[in-house]
């Protein structure tokens, strides 16, 4: 850790370490690297946990003492905490201005932003709860995610991006439960699944593109991975639904076209193993459901069908695993070539 060496150097400049002791001090600073890293990691984890627990504590405190507080007492409490979070950000960001020039990632200042994001949500929910006008519930989450967008962009912090993604998905689901909609061959029930899959798929491309362009603000590996998991989970759910109920061939074809697009993109264009693995297992799940509905309709002896089905699952899963291992080797080879 270079920080510790810098600290030693500062001590030397301040005259706290004699010149002849410097080699030894620097050596010690180098040796204790691992310890310091662990300490920092634990410190960060405790900080985030503290922020999360504090936010949860405030919300539970308000809910538990709902009648005892006056309307304005509740507003004052949440607004004061919001201001405290905002001021802590100012304080920490100023402290870290030289050590962390961009202020991106898991810094102390950004944990204050995480707290701020919770207080914004708490304040919006509190207003909605106090004046029960009966606004559509998706609006709360949509406004909250809108407020979160500048914070996530500013901090470049995975947890904030993750929260933004979560809120966006919740707003989409709530929106479609308020305004059920259908489009082309997607009925009321399945249209939200398609929208969630497409939105999260596009978010994945956004994060991938940003990382490829070196935009460190949008470097959020956990969020990026989860966008793909959400996109393909929604798609798999959609596919299984269509496979079990083959009344609309067009909507089942859409599943295959979508899966094929993800496959081609992740195999040949982006060369990413994670979406490739997910799309393989999605196809296995959907084809298994399809096969099961074919096998069990009019079957006399279900036990043999189960045997057949389990053999199919074991066979294709093994094939996919072997093939994915090969693909990983290919991707690593391509990467090494590029770097060389």
């Amino acid at each position: 850790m270079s920080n510790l060496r810098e600290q030693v150097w500062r001590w030397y400049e301040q005259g706290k370490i004699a010149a002849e002791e410097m080699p030894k001090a620097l050596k010690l600073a180098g040796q204790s690297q691992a310890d310091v890293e662990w300490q920092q990691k634990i410190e960060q984890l405790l900080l985030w946990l503290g922020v999360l627990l504090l936010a949860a504590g405030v919300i539970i405190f308000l809910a538990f003492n709902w009648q005892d507080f006056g309307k304005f007492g509740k507003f004052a409490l949440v607004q004061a905490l919001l201001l405290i979070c905002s001021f802590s950000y100012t304080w920490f960001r100023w402290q870290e201005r030289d050590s962390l020039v961009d202020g991106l990632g898991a810094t102390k200042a950004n944990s204050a932003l995480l707290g701020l994001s919770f207080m914004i949500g708490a304040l919006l929910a509190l207003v909605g709860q106090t004046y029960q006008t009966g606004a559509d519930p998706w609006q709360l989450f949509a406004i909250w995610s809108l407020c979160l967008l500048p914070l996530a962009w500013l901090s470049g912090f995975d947890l904030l991006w993750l929260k933004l993604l979560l809120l966006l998905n919740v707003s989409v689901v709530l929106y479609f439960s308020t305004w059920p909609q259908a489009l082309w061959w997607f009925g009321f029930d399945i249209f939200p699944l398609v929208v969630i899959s497409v939105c999260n798929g596009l978010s994945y491309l956004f994060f991938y593109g940003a990382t490829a362009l070196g935009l460190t603000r949008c470097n959020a590996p956990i969020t990026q991975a989860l966008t793909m998991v959400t996109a393909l989970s929604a798609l798999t759910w959609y596919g299984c639904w269509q496979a079990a109920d083959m009344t609309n061939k067009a909507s089942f074809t859409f599943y295959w076209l979508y899966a094929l697009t993800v496959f081609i993109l992740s195999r040949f264009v982006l060369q990413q193993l994670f979406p490739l693995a997910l799309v393989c297992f999605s196809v296995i799940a959907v084809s298994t459901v399809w096969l099961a509905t074919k096998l069990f309709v009019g079957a006399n002896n279900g036990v043999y069908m189960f045997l057949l089905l389990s053999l199919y699952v074991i066979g294709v899963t093994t094939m996919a695993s072997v093939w994915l291992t090969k693909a990983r080797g290919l991707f690593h080879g391509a990467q090494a070539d590029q770097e060389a």
Partner: protein
Amino acid sequence: MTSINRAKWNIALVAVLSASLLILVNWDIFTREAWLAKGDVVRLKLAPVDPRSLMQGDYMTLNYEIMAPIRSSTTEQNLDAYVRVKRDPDLVAQYIGVETRYLDSTALAENELLLQVRVRGGQVKLATNAYFFEEGKGKHFAAAKYGEFRVNHKGELLLDALLDQYLQKL
């Protein structure tokens, strides 16, 4: 940009964001308080809800008698409309009809009001469909017979209190 300028810029952004959010929210609170203080009072009779689903933890499902004629007056799945009501001497609303747009006060007879109503997926939504209260207060609020609302100049409703059969606040 130097590191100090960058830090200053970041801090300014968060400060502006927090300040504008607080201003907007407090302005919203202020207008709602004014609405509660000065809005027209209208009382809606509550319709009995299946007793098994009346109490769900710490909130009470609200259903209004007036929702039945609204539901039968339209076949639309999704609709934003206004219900025209006449207030009796107790300020309790009596159903007159459904209007698709907001009417000027000159078009309304004395003691008539327009209340915003929304139909979502065939379900009528009038003001709030639930009243939240502290855990354990269920029995106290079970006596509710009316909801007292304040109406603003756009026909929007804000729930002020629940009333018992003698129109006394609970």
